């Protein structure tokens, strides 16, 4: 059992616990655009967002942009980073391209933005599972020293998303392997490919919290304690509740 789950109330699969350990270690390390201290601060802010009064007020407003004010933040991050963290965590279904462009105009690079989204997603994944099981949220990791790599894939270009992405044919050795070799990557995999390390880490969680790629459509076999149909019903209901078409 991973050291993250020393005495869980439920039998958490070893591979799943290990994936959470890797995800936490990943958050603590220097990233591509943010150092470890900022990444852990983003993780902490992700949790803080759930208690933000401004986010709650915006959530029930006809339009989130109609409600001005300041987020209840931990005060460790620039305001523009806090805005992204809080909106992605608390009201993602009403993010629009105009809002995204505004964030970029107001000082974030596209790479910085994608990396923030990824850290928020890592934390939301692990924390939501913990809530489901009635477990305390895992303590956040200690930031590790070092500098961000500042690697932007040369092949990144504008595609079908708001953010630039890397098509498989444009991926170079410098990025390492980010896509499966036996099938075209889904858009959700390309979504964060501007920051390849985030794709690899997040899809490690996908593999263990959901299914490995090859198992997703292998309906003739079951890989978990719940069936494909039960898994897909859950996934679809969650996406409907989140008002996410994808």
């Amino acid at each position, binding site marked *: 059992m991973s050291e993250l789950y020393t005495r869980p109330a*439920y*039998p*958490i*699969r070893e591979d799943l616990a290990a994936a959470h350990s890797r995800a936490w270690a990943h958050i603590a390390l220097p990233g591509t655009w943010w150092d470890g201290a900022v990444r852990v601060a983003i993780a902490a802010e992700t949790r803080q967002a759930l208690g933000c009064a401004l986010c709650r007020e915006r959530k029930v407003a006809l339009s989130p942009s109609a409600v001005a004010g300041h987020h209840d933040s931990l005060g460790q991050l620039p305001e523009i980073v806090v805005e992204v963290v809080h909106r*992605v*965590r608390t009201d*993602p*279904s*009403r*993010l*629009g*391209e105009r809002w995204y462009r505004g964030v970029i105009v107001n000082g974030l690079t596209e790479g910085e933005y*994608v990396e923030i*989204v*990824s850290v*928020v*997603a*890592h934390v*939301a*994944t692990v924390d*939501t*599972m913990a*809530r*489901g*099981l*009635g477990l305390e949220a895992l303590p956040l990791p200690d930031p590790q020293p070092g500098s961000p790599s500042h690697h932007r894939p040369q092949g990144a270009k504008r595609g*079908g*998303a*708001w*953010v630039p992405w890397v098509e498989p044919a444009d991926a170079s050795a410098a990025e390492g392997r980010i896509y499966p070799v036996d099938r075209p990557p889904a*858009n*959700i995999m390309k*979504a*964060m490919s501007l920051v390849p390390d985030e794709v690899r880490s997040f899809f490690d969680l*996908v593999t*263990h*919290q*959901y299914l490995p790629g090859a198992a*997703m*459509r292998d*309906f003739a076999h079951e890989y*978990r*304690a*719940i*069936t*494909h*149909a*039960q898994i*897909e*019903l*859950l996934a*679809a*209901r*969650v996406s*409907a*509740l*989140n008002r*996410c*078409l*994808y």
Partner: protein
Amino acid sequence: MLLRASGSTHNKTYQLATVTGAAEGDGGVPSGDLLIAFAEAVLGEDDRALTPARAALMAALGPPGLVDAAAVVGLFNAIDRVADATGIPLEPEKAAASADFRADLDLDRFSVAARD
């Protein structure tokens, strides 16, 4: 879309309206009603609803089933955020394959392209 594909493999038709809450029941999926109640409770804020939903699911599926259900809910609660925050569209083949039930269930109102 994978829910329907899963049903096709096993010659079963699942009631997709349960996904949007337009229909009640299990949707034809074993313990589907419990799974839906659990997902709704996890994403909601009322712990008083979550505790019995968790207990009912564990009674039906056992602890390993509960863990895997919680893992899926957690993962998709994040995947939705990645999709929404990056503005990715549906792939053309998925859009074509899901056109009928997206229309039936009015799902295109959730499209990123429909947002300001």
